Protein backbone atom coordinates (compact mmCIF):
# COMPACT_ATOMS: atom_id res chain seq x y z
CA UNK A 1 0.00 0.00 0.00
CA UNK A 2 1.77 3.17 -1.17
CA UNK A 3 1.24 6.75 -0.02
CA UNK A 4 -1.48 7.41 -2.62
CA UNK A 5 -3.43 4.37 -1.42
CA UNK A 6 -3.23 5.68 2.15
CA UNK A 7 -4.44 9.13 1.13
CA UNK A 8 -7.24 7.67 -1.00
CA UNK A 9 -8.34 5.62 1.97
CA UNK A 10 -8.32 8.76 4.14
CA UNK A 11 -10.33 10.62 1.49
CA UNK A 12 -12.98 7.90 1.26
CA UNK A 13 -13.30 7.91 5.05
CA UNK A 14 -13.44 11.71 5.04
CA UNK A 15 -10.42 11.78 7.32
CA UNK A 16 -7.92 13.81 5.25
CA UNK A 17 -6.11 16.40 7.34
CA UNK A 18 -5.28 19.82 5.89
CA UNK A 19 -1.67 18.78 5.18
CA UNK A 20 -2.81 15.51 3.66
CA UNK A 21 -5.24 17.38 1.40
CA UNK A 22 -2.36 19.47 0.05
CA UNK A 23 -0.24 16.37 -0.47
CA UNK A 24 -3.10 14.53 -2.16
CA UNK A 25 -3.78 17.47 -4.46
CA UNK A 26 -0.13 17.65 -5.51
CA UNK A 27 -0.01 13.93 -6.25
CA UNK A 28 -3.11 14.11 -8.46
CA UNK A 29 -2.01 17.28 -10.27
CA UNK A 30 1.32 15.70 -11.18
CA UNK A 31 0.27 12.25 -12.27
CA UNK A 32 -2.33 10.94 -14.72
CA UNK A 33 -1.85 7.51 -13.13
CA UNK A 34 -2.78 8.95 -9.72
CA UNK A 35 -5.91 10.50 -11.22
CA UNK A 36 -6.84 7.15 -12.79
CA UNK A 37 -6.45 5.47 -9.40
CA UNK A 38 -8.63 8.21 -7.84
CA UNK A 39 -11.47 7.37 -10.22
CA UNK A 40 -10.97 3.61 -9.70
CA UNK A 41 -11.14 3.86 -5.91
CA UNK A 42 -13.88 6.44 -5.89
CA UNK A 43 -16.11 4.53 -8.28
CA UNK A 44 -15.95 1.38 -6.18
CA UNK A 45 -16.62 3.46 -3.07
CA UNK A 46 -19.69 5.09 -4.64
CA UNK A 47 -20.99 1.78 -5.99
CA UNK A 48 -20.54 0.16 -2.56
CA UNK A 49 -22.50 3.00 -0.98
CA UNK A 50 -25.27 2.61 -3.51
CA UNK A 51 -25.34 -1.17 -3.14
CA UNK A 52 -25.58 -1.00 0.66
CA UNK A 53 -28.16 1.81 0.59
CA UNK A 54 -30.32 -0.44 -1.58
CA UNK A 55 -29.72 -3.47 0.65
CA UNK A 56 -30.52 -1.68 3.89
CA UNK A 57 -33.85 -2.86 5.35
CA UNK A 58 -36.59 -0.25 5.35
CA UNK A 59 -36.80 1.71 8.62
CA UNK A 60 -39.73 1.09 10.99
CA UNK A 61 -42.70 3.25 10.07
CA UNK A 62 -46.27 3.71 11.23
CA UNK A 63 -49.29 4.35 9.08
CA UNK A 64 -49.11 8.13 9.34
CA UNK A 65 -45.47 8.20 8.34
CA UNK A 66 -46.19 5.96 5.39
CA UNK A 67 -49.12 8.16 4.43
CA UNK A 68 -47.00 11.28 4.74
CA UNK A 69 -44.38 9.77 2.46
CA UNK A 70 -46.86 8.57 -0.15
CA UNK A 71 -46.99 10.69 -3.26
CA UNK A 72 -50.43 11.96 -4.12
CA UNK A 73 -51.54 10.26 -7.27
CA UNK A 74 -54.97 11.77 -7.70
CA UNK A 75 -56.97 14.71 -6.37
CA UNK A 76 -59.44 12.28 -4.85
CA UNK A 77 -56.64 10.48 -3.01
CA UNK A 78 -55.27 13.84 -1.95
CA UNK A 79 -58.63 15.09 -0.73
CA UNK A 80 -59.43 11.82 1.05
CA UNK A 81 -56.02 11.86 2.69
CA UNK A 82 -56.46 15.44 3.86
CA UNK A 83 -59.84 14.47 5.36
CA UNK A 84 -58.33 11.42 7.03
CA UNK A 85 -55.53 13.55 8.41
CA UNK A 86 -58.11 15.98 9.79
CA UNK A 87 -60.02 13.12 11.42
CA UNK A 88 -56.78 11.78 12.88
CA UNK A 89 -56.00 15.19 14.32
CA UNK A 90 -59.49 15.45 15.79
CA UNK A 91 -59.30 12.03 17.39
CA UNK A 92 -55.87 12.85 18.70
CA UNK A 93 -52.59 11.47 17.58
CA UNK A 94 -52.26 9.84 20.92
CA UNK A 95 -54.49 7.01 19.71
CA UNK A 96 -52.22 6.45 16.74
CA UNK A 97 -49.18 6.58 18.93
CA UNK A 98 -50.73 4.23 21.49
CA UNK A 99 -51.05 1.68 18.71
CA UNK A 100 -47.37 1.96 17.91
CA UNK A 101 -46.53 1.71 21.60
CA UNK A 102 -47.81 -1.85 21.53
CA UNK A 103 -45.30 -2.72 18.84
CA UNK A 104 -41.86 -4.04 19.67
CA UNK A 105 -39.59 -0.98 20.07
CA UNK A 106 -36.89 -1.13 17.41
CA UNK A 107 -34.61 1.55 18.75
CA UNK A 108 -34.37 0.90 22.48
CA UNK A 109 -36.52 3.91 23.43
CA UNK A 110 -39.84 3.21 25.08
CA UNK A 111 -42.80 5.31 26.15
CA UNK A 112 -45.49 7.44 24.55
CA UNK A 113 -44.29 9.05 21.32
CA UNK A 114 -43.81 12.82 21.50
CA UNK A 115 -43.26 13.32 17.77
CA UNK A 116 -42.77 11.27 14.69
CA UNK A 117 -39.91 11.09 12.20
CA UNK A 118 -41.82 11.42 8.95
CA UNK A 119 -38.93 11.94 6.52
CA UNK A 120 -35.21 11.36 6.31
CA UNK A 121 -32.35 11.94 3.93
CA UNK A 122 -29.07 10.11 4.58
CA UNK A 123 -29.55 10.25 8.33
CA UNK A 124 -27.25 8.59 10.83
CA UNK A 125 -28.01 8.73 14.55
CA UNK A 126 -26.08 8.01 17.67
CA UNK A 127 -28.93 5.92 19.08
CA UNK A 128 -31.24 5.12 16.17
CA UNK A 129 -30.85 3.09 12.98
CA UNK A 130 -29.78 4.87 9.82
CA UNK A 131 -32.62 6.49 7.90
CA UNK A 132 -34.87 5.96 10.90
CA UNK A 133 -38.53 6.84 10.45
CA UNK A 134 -41.30 6.27 12.99
CA UNK A 135 -42.55 7.50 16.36
CA UNK A 136 -40.06 9.04 18.81
CA UNK A 137 -40.77 8.78 22.53
CA UNK A 138 -39.46 11.26 25.10
CA UNK A 139 -35.69 11.16 25.16
CA UNK A 140 -32.43 12.76 24.16
CA UNK A 141 -31.33 12.31 20.56
CA UNK A 142 -28.17 12.94 18.57
CA UNK A 143 -28.59 13.24 14.81
CA UNK A 144 -25.10 12.80 13.38
CA UNK A 145 -25.56 13.43 9.65
CA UNK A 146 -28.30 14.04 7.11
CA UNK A 147 -31.69 15.71 7.49
CA UNK A 148 -34.60 14.33 9.44
CA UNK A 149 -38.15 15.59 9.56
CA UNK A 150 -40.09 15.60 12.84
CA UNK A 151 -43.86 15.93 12.85
CA UNK A 152 -45.85 16.83 15.97
CA UNK A 153 -49.51 15.97 16.63
CA UNK A 154 -50.52 19.62 16.13
CA UNK A 155 -49.17 19.62 12.57
CA UNK A 156 -45.92 21.47 13.35
CA UNK A 157 -42.98 20.12 11.35
CA UNK A 158 -39.26 20.62 11.78
CA UNK A 159 -36.39 19.63 9.51
CA UNK A 160 -33.27 19.07 11.59
CA UNK A 161 -29.86 18.91 9.99
CA UNK A 162 -27.07 16.84 11.48
CA UNK A 163 -25.08 17.29 13.58
CA UNK A 164 -27.91 18.17 15.94
CA UNK A 165 -28.62 17.37 19.57
CA UNK A 166 -32.19 17.63 20.84
CA UNK A 167 -34.52 16.47 23.56
CA UNK A 168 -38.22 15.57 23.42
CA UNK A 169 -39.89 15.79 26.81
CA UNK A 170 -42.86 18.18 26.59
CA UNK A 171 -45.77 18.17 24.17
CA UNK A 172 -45.28 20.55 21.22
CA UNK A 173 -41.81 21.60 22.35
CA UNK A 174 -38.50 20.94 20.63
CA UNK A 175 -35.56 21.29 23.00
CA UNK A 176 -32.74 22.10 20.60
CA UNK A 177 -29.42 21.90 22.43
CA UNK A 178 -27.16 22.16 19.37
CA UNK A 179 -27.55 22.29 15.62
CA UNK A 180 -30.11 23.85 13.34
CA UNK A 181 -33.74 23.33 12.41
CA UNK A 182 -36.14 24.81 9.88
CA UNK A 183 -39.78 24.82 11.01
CA UNK A 184 -43.20 25.14 9.46
CA UNK A 185 -46.01 25.65 11.94
CA UNK A 186 -49.51 25.80 10.45
CA UNK A 187 -52.21 28.01 11.94
CA UNK A 188 -53.68 25.24 14.10
CA UNK A 189 -50.34 24.66 15.82
CA UNK A 190 -49.66 28.22 16.99
CA UNK A 191 -47.77 28.24 20.28
CA UNK A 192 -45.21 25.63 19.32
CA UNK A 193 -41.92 26.30 21.14
CA UNK A 194 -38.30 25.73 20.23
CA UNK A 195 -36.46 25.77 23.55
CA UNK A 196 -32.72 26.44 23.45
CA UNK A 197 -30.08 26.86 26.16
CA UNK A 198 -30.31 30.62 25.52
CA UNK A 199 -34.11 31.01 25.64
CA UNK A 200 -37.32 30.12 23.82
CA UNK A 201 -38.52 30.83 20.31
CA UNK A 202 -42.33 30.83 20.44
CA UNK A 203 -44.24 30.44 17.21
CA UNK A 204 -47.29 32.52 16.29
CA UNK A 205 -48.13 30.74 13.01
CA UNK A 206 -45.12 30.82 10.81
CA UNK A 207 -42.03 29.56 9.01
CA UNK A 208 -38.77 30.09 10.83
CA UNK A 209 -35.31 28.68 11.48
CA UNK A 210 -33.38 28.24 14.72
CA UNK A 211 -29.67 27.56 15.06
CA UNK A 212 -27.87 26.80 18.32
CA UNK A 213 -24.10 27.05 18.07
CA UNK A 214 -21.21 28.76 19.74
CA UNK A 215 -23.18 29.38 22.98
CA UNK A 216 -25.80 31.45 21.19
CA UNK A 217 -29.13 31.03 19.44
CA UNK A 218 -30.01 32.54 16.08
CA UNK A 219 -33.70 32.76 15.20
CA UNK A 220 -34.62 33.69 11.62
CA UNK A 221 -38.20 34.53 10.72
CA UNK A 222 -39.14 33.82 7.10
CA UNK A 223 -42.91 34.37 7.23
CA UNK A 224 -45.53 34.97 9.95
CA UNK A 225 -44.58 35.92 13.46
CA UNK A 226 -42.40 34.61 16.30
CA UNK A 227 -41.53 35.75 19.78
CA UNK A 228 -38.10 35.29 21.32
CA UNK A 229 -38.08 34.99 25.10
CA UNK A 230 -35.03 34.91 27.33
CA UNK A 231 -35.55 35.59 31.04
CA UNK A 232 -37.51 38.82 31.29
CA UNK A 233 -36.59 39.88 27.77
CA UNK A 234 -39.20 39.35 25.04
CA UNK A 235 -38.84 40.35 21.43
CA UNK A 236 -41.57 39.90 18.85
CA UNK A 237 -40.68 39.61 15.17
CA UNK A 238 -43.49 40.13 12.71
CA UNK A 239 -41.47 40.94 9.60
CA UNK A 240 -38.83 38.65 8.11
CA UNK A 241 -35.61 39.18 10.00
CA UNK A 242 -33.13 37.61 12.36
CA UNK A 243 -32.28 37.85 16.02
CA UNK A 244 -29.25 36.44 17.84
CA UNK A 245 -29.23 36.07 21.61
CA UNK A 246 -27.19 34.53 24.42
CA UNK A 247 -29.34 35.60 27.38
CA UNK A 248 -31.72 38.35 28.49
CA UNK A 249 -28.94 40.93 28.35
CA UNK A 250 -27.48 39.99 25.01
CA UNK A 251 -29.94 40.42 22.13
CA UNK A 252 -29.03 41.65 18.68
CA UNK A 253 -30.94 41.90 15.42
CA UNK A 254 -29.10 41.99 12.13
CA UNK A 255 -32.23 42.50 10.08
CA UNK A 256 -31.85 39.84 7.43
CA UNK A 257 -33.32 36.35 7.48
CA UNK A 258 -31.34 33.72 5.58
CA UNK A 259 -33.74 30.90 4.66
CA UNK A 260 -31.10 29.05 2.61
CA UNK A 261 -29.02 28.56 5.75
CA UNK A 262 -31.68 26.35 7.30
CA UNK A 263 -33.03 22.95 6.36
CA UNK A 264 -36.46 22.93 4.82
CA UNK A 265 -39.28 20.64 6.02
CA UNK A 266 -41.27 18.72 3.42
CA UNK A 267 -44.70 20.33 3.17
CA UNK A 268 -47.63 21.17 0.94
CA UNK A 269 -49.36 24.52 0.60
CA UNK A 270 -52.80 24.90 -0.90
CA UNK A 271 -52.88 27.97 -3.16
CA UNK A 272 -55.67 30.52 -2.95
CA UNK A 273 -56.53 29.83 -6.60
CA UNK A 274 -58.19 26.58 -5.48
CA UNK A 275 -61.84 27.04 -6.46
CA UNK A 276 -65.03 25.15 -7.12
CA UNK A 277 -66.50 28.15 -8.99
CA UNK A 278 -69.37 28.21 -6.53
CA UNK A 279 -69.55 31.98 -6.01
CA UNK A 280 -71.02 34.41 -8.55
CA UNK A 281 -68.21 36.40 -10.16
CA UNK A 282 -67.80 39.27 -12.58
CA UNK A 283 -66.37 38.16 -15.89
CA UNK A 284 -65.57 39.63 -19.25
CA UNK A 285 -63.36 42.59 -18.36
CA UNK A 286 -60.22 41.21 -19.94
CA UNK A 287 -56.96 40.50 -18.16
CA UNK A 288 -57.07 40.84 -14.34
CA UNK A 289 -54.97 43.71 -13.03
CA UNK A 290 -54.20 42.30 -9.61
CA UNK A 291 -53.71 39.12 -7.60
CA UNK A 292 -56.61 36.99 -6.48
CA UNK A 293 -59.18 37.98 -9.14
CA UNK A 294 -60.57 35.85 -11.93
CA UNK A 295 -61.20 37.65 -15.21
CA UNK A 296 -60.97 37.15 -18.95
CA UNK A 297 -63.37 36.54 -21.80
CA UNK A 298 -67.12 36.21 -21.46
CA UNK A 299 -68.09 33.57 -18.89
CA UNK A 300 -70.49 32.96 -16.04
CA UNK A 301 -70.95 30.73 -13.02
CA UNK A 302 -73.90 28.35 -13.50
CA UNK A 303 -75.39 25.53 -11.43
CA UNK A 304 -76.64 23.48 -14.38
CA UNK A 305 -76.60 23.88 -18.16
CA UNK A 306 -77.54 21.63 -21.09
CA UNK A 307 -77.65 18.54 -18.92
CA UNK A 308 -74.23 19.14 -17.35
CA UNK A 309 -74.04 19.45 -13.55
CA UNK A 310 -71.04 20.72 -11.52
CA UNK A 311 -68.38 18.19 -10.64
CA UNK A 312 -68.58 19.39 -7.03
CA UNK A 313 -70.33 22.11 -5.08
CA UNK A 314 -73.13 24.27 -6.42
CA UNK A 315 -71.43 25.95 -9.36
CA UNK A 316 -69.18 25.56 -12.37
CA UNK A 317 -67.63 28.00 -14.78
CA UNK A 318 -69.29 28.23 -18.20
CA UNK A 319 -67.15 29.47 -21.09
CA UNK A 320 -69.27 31.69 -23.35
CA UNK A 321 -67.10 33.41 -25.96
CA UNK A 322 -63.55 34.07 -27.06
CA UNK A 323 -63.94 37.80 -26.51
CA UNK A 324 -65.04 39.95 -23.61
CA UNK A 325 -68.52 40.51 -25.11
CA UNK A 326 -70.89 37.59 -24.79
CA UNK A 327 -72.29 37.77 -28.28
CA UNK A 328 -69.38 39.04 -30.31
CA UNK A 329 -67.74 36.24 -32.22
CA UNK A 330 -64.08 36.77 -32.55
CA UNK A 331 -61.32 35.56 -34.81
CA UNK A 332 -59.61 34.30 -31.66
CA UNK A 333 -59.85 30.61 -31.02
CA UNK A 334 -59.80 30.43 -27.24
CA UNK A 335 -62.01 31.60 -24.42
CA UNK A 336 -59.40 32.46 -21.80
CA UNK A 337 -59.80 33.01 -18.06
CA UNK A 338 -56.95 34.25 -15.98
CA UNK A 339 -55.87 34.50 -12.36
CA UNK A 340 -52.66 35.93 -10.90
CA UNK A 341 -51.14 33.92 -8.06
CA UNK A 342 -48.84 35.85 -5.74
CA UNK A 343 -45.78 33.77 -4.85
CA UNK A 344 -44.39 36.39 -2.41
CA UNK A 345 -45.59 34.47 0.68
CA UNK A 346 -43.61 31.45 -0.55
CA UNK A 347 -40.47 33.23 -1.78
CA UNK A 348 -38.32 31.81 1.03
CA UNK A 349 -39.27 28.34 -0.18
CA UNK A 350 -39.20 28.97 -3.93
CA UNK A 351 -35.78 30.63 -3.92
CA UNK A 352 -34.32 27.35 -2.64
CA UNK A 353 -35.27 25.65 -5.92
CA UNK A 354 -37.10 23.05 -3.85
CA UNK A 355 -40.70 23.85 -4.77
CA UNK A 356 -42.80 22.16 -7.40
CA UNK A 357 -46.21 23.38 -8.39
CA UNK A 358 -49.26 21.36 -9.32
CA UNK A 359 -52.26 23.00 -10.99
CA UNK A 360 -55.24 20.97 -12.05
CA UNK A 361 -58.69 21.67 -13.46
CA UNK A 362 -61.59 19.47 -14.58
CA UNK A 363 -63.46 20.15 -17.82
CA UNK A 364 -66.72 18.99 -19.38
CA UNK A 365 -68.97 19.88 -22.29
CA UNK A 366 -72.38 19.17 -23.75
CA UNK A 367 -72.60 16.27 -26.17
CA UNK A 368 -73.43 18.61 -29.06
CA UNK A 369 -72.81 17.49 -32.60
CA UNK A 370 -69.92 17.20 -35.07
CA UNK A 371 -69.30 20.95 -34.96
CA UNK A 372 -69.10 21.12 -31.15
CA UNK A 373 -65.66 22.14 -29.93
CA UNK A 374 -63.88 19.52 -27.83
CA UNK A 375 -60.61 20.97 -26.63
CA UNK A 376 -59.65 22.58 -23.29
CA UNK A 377 -56.33 23.56 -21.77
CA UNK A 378 -54.53 24.88 -18.74
CA UNK A 379 -51.44 27.10 -18.74
CA UNK A 380 -49.19 28.41 -15.99
CA UNK A 381 -47.09 31.37 -17.03
CA UNK A 382 -44.22 31.80 -14.60
CA UNK A 383 -43.13 35.40 -14.02
CA UNK A 384 -40.53 37.35 -12.16
CA UNK A 385 -40.95 40.99 -11.15
CA UNK A 386 -42.41 43.08 -8.38
CA UNK A 387 -46.02 43.38 -9.60
CA UNK A 388 -48.40 42.20 -12.29
CA UNK A 389 -47.77 45.33 -14.37
CA UNK A 390 -43.98 44.89 -14.68
CA UNK A 391 -43.92 41.09 -14.72
CA UNK A 392 -41.46 39.33 -17.02
CA UNK A 393 -42.35 35.83 -18.21
CA UNK A 394 -39.59 33.28 -17.66
CA UNK A 395 -41.25 29.90 -18.20
CA UNK A 396 -44.53 28.30 -19.18
CA UNK A 397 -46.17 25.00 -18.32
CA UNK A 398 -49.10 23.93 -20.44
CA UNK A 399 -51.33 20.96 -21.20
CA UNK A 400 -54.35 20.45 -23.45
CA UNK A 401 -57.14 17.92 -23.46
CA UNK A 402 -59.72 16.62 -25.96
CA UNK A 403 -62.89 15.83 -24.03
CA UNK A 404 -65.32 13.04 -24.82
CA UNK A 405 -69.05 13.54 -25.48
CA UNK A 406 -70.23 12.02 -22.18
CA UNK A 407 -71.82 14.85 -20.20
CA UNK A 408 -71.40 12.98 -16.92
CA UNK A 409 -67.67 12.60 -17.44
CA UNK A 410 -65.55 15.41 -15.98
CA UNK A 411 -62.01 15.07 -17.32
CA UNK A 412 -59.06 16.40 -15.38
CA UNK A 413 -55.90 18.09 -16.65
CA UNK A 414 -52.91 18.60 -14.40
CA UNK A 415 -49.66 20.45 -14.96
CA UNK A 416 -46.62 20.01 -12.77
CA UNK A 417 -43.22 21.63 -12.73
CA UNK A 418 -40.38 22.86 -10.57
CA UNK A 419 -40.68 26.60 -10.01
CA UNK A 420 -37.58 28.54 -11.06
CA UNK A 421 -35.99 30.14 -7.97
CA UNK A 422 -36.59 33.67 -9.30
CA UNK A 423 -40.37 33.14 -9.71
CA UNK A 424 -42.45 35.80 -7.91
CA UNK A 425 -45.88 35.30 -9.49
CA UNK A 426 -47.82 32.92 -11.70
CA UNK A 427 -50.52 33.74 -14.19
CA UNK A 428 -52.87 30.80 -14.42
CA UNK A 429 -55.03 30.46 -17.52
CA UNK A 430 -57.83 28.02 -18.26
CA UNK A 431 -59.01 27.80 -21.87
CA UNK A 432 -61.82 26.39 -23.96
CA UNK A 433 -60.69 26.21 -27.60
CA UNK A 434 -62.68 26.57 -30.80
CA UNK A 435 -60.82 23.65 -32.26
CA UNK A 436 -63.52 22.48 -34.68
CA UNK A 437 -64.36 25.73 -36.45
CA UNK A 438 -65.01 29.32 -35.61
CA UNK A 439 -68.38 29.03 -37.26
CA UNK A 440 -70.71 31.34 -35.36
CA UNK A 441 -72.47 34.35 -36.76
CA UNK A 442 -72.89 37.69 -35.08
CA UNK A 443 -75.38 37.40 -32.23
CA UNK A 444 -74.74 33.69 -31.65
CA UNK A 445 -72.96 32.15 -28.66
CA UNK A 446 -69.57 30.63 -29.58
CA UNK A 447 -69.48 27.78 -27.05
CA UNK A 448 -72.54 25.51 -26.90
CA UNK A 449 -71.91 24.36 -23.33
CA UNK A 450 -68.31 24.16 -22.13
CA UNK A 451 -67.40 24.10 -18.45
CA UNK A 452 -64.61 24.10 -15.87
CA UNK A 453 -64.75 23.07 -12.21
CA UNK A 454 -62.60 21.86 -9.29
CA UNK A 455 -59.54 23.97 -9.83
CA UNK A 456 -56.74 22.91 -7.50
CA UNK A 457 -53.43 24.60 -6.93
CA UNK A 458 -50.74 23.49 -4.52
CA UNK A 459 -47.08 23.89 -3.87
CA UNK A 460 -45.04 20.91 -2.79
CA UNK A 461 -41.83 21.56 -0.92
CA UNK A 462 -39.08 18.98 -0.81
CA UNK A 463 -36.99 18.18 2.27
CA UNK A 464 -33.79 20.17 1.80
CA UNK A 465 -30.53 20.73 3.64
CA UNK A 466 -29.46 24.21 4.62
CA UNK A 467 -25.86 25.33 4.68
CA UNK A 468 -23.90 26.55 7.64
CA UNK A 469 -22.48 29.97 6.96
CA UNK A 470 -18.74 29.52 6.60
CA UNK A 471 -17.81 31.99 9.33
CA UNK A 472 -19.99 30.15 11.80
CA UNK A 473 -18.38 26.83 10.97
CA UNK A 474 -15.01 28.37 11.70
CA UNK A 475 -16.29 29.82 14.96
CA UNK A 476 -17.69 26.45 15.97
CA UNK A 477 -14.44 24.71 15.16
CA UNK A 478 -12.53 27.23 17.20
CA UNK A 479 -14.94 26.76 20.09
CA UNK A 480 -14.41 22.99 20.25
Amino acid at each position, binding site marked *: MDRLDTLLEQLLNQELSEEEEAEFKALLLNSAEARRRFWDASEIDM*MLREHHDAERPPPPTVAAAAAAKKKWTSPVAFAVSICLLGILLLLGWQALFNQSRNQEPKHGFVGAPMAEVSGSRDTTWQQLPKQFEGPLPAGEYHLQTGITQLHWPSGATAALQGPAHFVLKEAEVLDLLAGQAGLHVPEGAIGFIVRTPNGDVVDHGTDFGVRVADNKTDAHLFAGEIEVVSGEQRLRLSDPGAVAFRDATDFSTDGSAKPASFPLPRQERILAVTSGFDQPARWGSGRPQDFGIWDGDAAEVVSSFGGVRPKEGSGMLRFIASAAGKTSPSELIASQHLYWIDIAPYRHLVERGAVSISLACSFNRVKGDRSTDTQFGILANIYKGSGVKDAEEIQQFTKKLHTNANEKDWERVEINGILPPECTMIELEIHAYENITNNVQSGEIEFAGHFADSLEGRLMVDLRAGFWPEDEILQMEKGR
Partner: protein
Amino acid sequence: MRNYGKIRAFVGSLVRDPVATEDIVHNVFLVVTKKADSFKLGTNFTAWVFSISRFEVLRHFDKSKKQPRWLSQELLDMLVSEAPEVLGDSSRQVALRRCIEKLSPRSKQLIHHRYMDGMKTGAIAKSINWTPQAVSVTLSRARVALRECVEKQIRREGWA
Protein backbone atom coordinates in the same frame (compact mmCIF):
# COMPACT_ATOMS: atom_id res chain seq x y z
CA MET B 1 -32.98 6.82 -14.87
CA ARG B 2 -30.50 4.61 -16.71
CA ASN B 3 -27.75 7.16 -16.10
CA TYR B 4 -28.53 7.73 -12.43
CA GLY B 5 -25.71 5.54 -11.10
CA LYS B 6 -23.26 7.09 -13.55
CA ILE B 7 -24.07 10.69 -12.56
CA ARG B 8 -24.21 9.81 -8.87
CA ALA B 9 -20.78 8.16 -9.06
CA PHE B 10 -19.36 11.16 -10.92
CA VAL B 11 -20.84 13.83 -8.63
CA GLY B 12 -20.35 11.85 -5.41
CA SER B 13 -16.68 11.26 -6.20
CA LEU B 14 -16.06 14.98 -6.39
CA VAL B 15 -18.42 16.28 -3.71
CA ARG B 16 -18.18 13.46 -1.13
CA ASP B 17 -21.31 14.61 0.70
CA PRO B 18 -24.34 12.31 0.32
CA VAL B 19 -26.98 15.00 0.87
CA ALA B 20 -25.34 17.49 -1.48
CA THR B 21 -24.76 14.73 -4.02
CA GLU B 22 -28.48 13.91 -4.14
CA ASP B 23 -29.36 17.57 -4.60
CA ILE B 24 -26.81 18.04 -7.37
CA VAL B 25 -27.84 14.83 -9.18
CA HIS B 26 -31.45 16.06 -8.97
CA ASN B 27 -30.44 19.39 -10.52
CA VAL B 28 -28.42 17.62 -13.24
CA PHE B 29 -31.50 15.62 -14.23
CA LEU B 30 -33.55 18.79 -14.40
CA VAL B 31 -30.98 20.48 -16.64
CA VAL B 32 -30.53 17.37 -18.81
CA THR B 33 -34.30 17.16 -19.28
CA LYS B 34 -34.60 20.86 -20.02
CA LYS B 35 -31.71 20.89 -22.47
CA ALA B 36 -32.43 17.51 -24.06
CA ASP B 37 -33.27 19.24 -27.35
CA SER B 38 -29.84 20.84 -27.51
CA PHE B 39 -28.02 17.48 -27.32
CA LYS B 40 -26.72 16.58 -30.78
CA LEU B 41 -27.40 12.96 -31.70
CA GLY B 42 -24.21 11.15 -32.61
CA THR B 43 -22.08 13.07 -30.12
CA ASN B 44 -20.91 11.64 -26.78
CA PHE B 45 -23.87 11.62 -24.39
CA THR B 46 -21.78 10.72 -21.34
CA ALA B 47 -19.38 13.60 -21.96
CA TRP B 48 -22.36 15.95 -22.37
CA VAL B 49 -23.93 14.77 -19.08
CA PHE B 50 -20.57 14.99 -17.29
CA SER B 51 -20.07 18.56 -18.51
CA ILE B 52 -23.51 19.49 -17.10
CA SER B 53 -22.64 17.67 -13.87
CA ARG B 54 -19.33 19.55 -13.65
CA PHE B 55 -21.19 22.84 -13.93
CA GLU B 56 -23.68 21.84 -11.23
CA VAL B 57 -20.84 20.68 -8.95
CA LEU B 58 -19.11 24.04 -9.39
CA ARG B 59 -22.38 25.84 -8.74
CA HIS B 60 -22.76 23.84 -5.53
CA PHE B 61 -19.21 24.70 -4.41
CA ASP B 62 -19.84 28.33 -5.21
CA LYS B 63 -23.14 28.46 -3.31
CA SER B 64 -22.14 26.34 -0.32
CA LYS B 65 -18.58 27.67 -0.10
CA LYS B 66 -17.56 24.08 0.64
CA GLN B 67 -15.12 23.32 -2.16
CA PRO B 68 -12.69 20.71 -0.84
CA ARG B 69 -9.21 22.14 -0.41
CA TRP B 70 -7.68 19.34 -2.47
CA LEU B 71 -9.98 19.91 -5.43
CA SER B 72 -8.69 23.03 -7.17
CA GLN B 73 -10.33 24.25 -10.38
CA GLU B 74 -7.34 23.01 -12.37
CA LEU B 75 -7.52 19.54 -10.83
CA LEU B 76 -11.30 19.41 -11.21
CA ASP B 77 -10.99 20.08 -14.95
CA MET B 78 -8.31 17.38 -15.27
CA LEU B 79 -10.46 14.84 -13.41
CA VAL B 80 -13.57 15.69 -15.41
CA SER B 81 -11.75 15.32 -18.74
CA GLU B 82 -10.32 11.96 -17.63
CA ALA B 83 -13.44 10.53 -15.97
CA PRO B 84 -13.99 6.98 -17.28
CA GLU B 85 -16.95 6.75 -19.60
CA VAL B 86 -18.09 3.50 -17.97
CA LEU B 87 -18.10 5.10 -14.49
CA GLY B 88 -20.97 3.73 -12.38
CA ASP B 89 -22.60 1.85 -15.28
CA SER B 90 -25.46 -0.37 -14.18
CA SER B 91 -23.62 -3.44 -15.55
CA ARG B 92 -20.78 -2.64 -13.17
CA GLN B 93 -23.22 -2.44 -10.24
CA VAL B 94 -24.50 -5.90 -11.14
CA ALA B 95 -20.94 -7.20 -11.36
CA LEU B 96 -20.08 -5.60 -8.00
CA ARG B 97 -22.92 -7.47 -6.29
CA ARG B 98 -21.47 -10.78 -7.49
CA CYS B 99 -17.94 -9.76 -6.52
CA ILE B 100 -18.89 -8.82 -2.94
CA GLU B 101 -19.96 -12.44 -2.48
CA LYS B 102 -16.45 -13.53 -3.46
CA LEU B 103 -14.67 -11.46 -0.79
CA SER B 104 -13.04 -13.20 2.14
CA PRO B 105 -15.25 -13.27 5.26
CA ARG B 106 -12.98 -10.76 7.04
CA SER B 107 -12.98 -8.27 4.13
CA LYS B 108 -16.71 -8.71 3.73
CA GLN B 109 -17.20 -7.95 7.42
CA LEU B 110 -15.14 -4.76 7.19
CA ILE B 111 -16.98 -3.63 4.04
CA HIS B 112 -20.26 -4.28 5.85
CA HIS B 113 -19.17 -2.23 8.88
CA ARG B 114 -17.98 0.59 6.66
CA TYR B 115 -20.90 0.84 4.23
CA MET B 116 -23.88 -0.78 5.93
CA ASP B 117 -23.19 0.43 9.46
CA GLY B 118 -21.49 3.68 8.42
CA MET B 119 -18.61 3.13 10.84
CA LYS B 120 -15.34 5.05 10.55
CA THR B 121 -11.99 3.30 10.53
CA GLY B 122 -11.32 3.96 14.21
CA ALA B 123 -14.70 2.60 15.29
CA ILE B 124 -14.28 -0.53 13.17
CA ALA B 125 -10.79 -1.10 14.61
CA LYS B 126 -12.13 -0.80 18.14
CA SER B 127 -15.05 -3.16 17.50
CA ILE B 128 -12.85 -5.98 16.16
CA ASN B 129 -9.78 -5.22 18.24
CA TRP B 130 -7.51 -4.34 15.31
CA THR B 131 -5.31 -1.31 14.74
CA PRO B 132 -6.84 1.46 12.57
CA GLN B 133 -3.88 0.96 10.18
CA ALA B 134 -4.76 -2.73 9.71
CA VAL B 135 -8.40 -1.84 9.04
CA SER B 136 -7.36 0.80 6.45
CA VAL B 137 -5.06 -1.61 4.65
CA THR B 138 -7.68 -4.37 4.57
CA LEU B 139 -10.40 -2.02 3.33
CA SER B 140 -8.11 -0.60 0.66
CA ARG B 141 -7.14 -4.08 -0.54
CA ALA B 142 -10.78 -5.17 -0.54
CA ARG B 143 -11.71 -2.26 -2.80
CA VAL B 144 -8.84 -3.02 -5.18
CA ALA B 145 -9.90 -6.68 -5.26
CA LEU B 146 -13.49 -5.66 -5.95
CA ARG B 147 -12.44 -3.38 -8.81
CA GLU B 148 -10.34 -6.10 -10.42
CA CYS B 149 -13.19 -8.58 -10.00
CA VAL B 150 -15.67 -6.13 -11.59
CA GLU B 151 -13.37 -5.65 -14.60
CA LYS B 152 -13.04 -9.43 -14.99
CA GLN B 153 -16.76 -9.98 -14.73
CA ILE B 154 -17.44 -7.29 -17.32
CA ARG B 155 -14.94 -8.80 -19.77
CA ARG B 156 -16.30 -12.31 -19.22
CA GLU B 157 -19.89 -11.25 -19.72
CA GLY B 158 -18.98 -9.25 -22.79
CA TRP B 159 -20.44 -6.04 -21.39
CA ALA B 160 -17.34 -4.00 -22.10
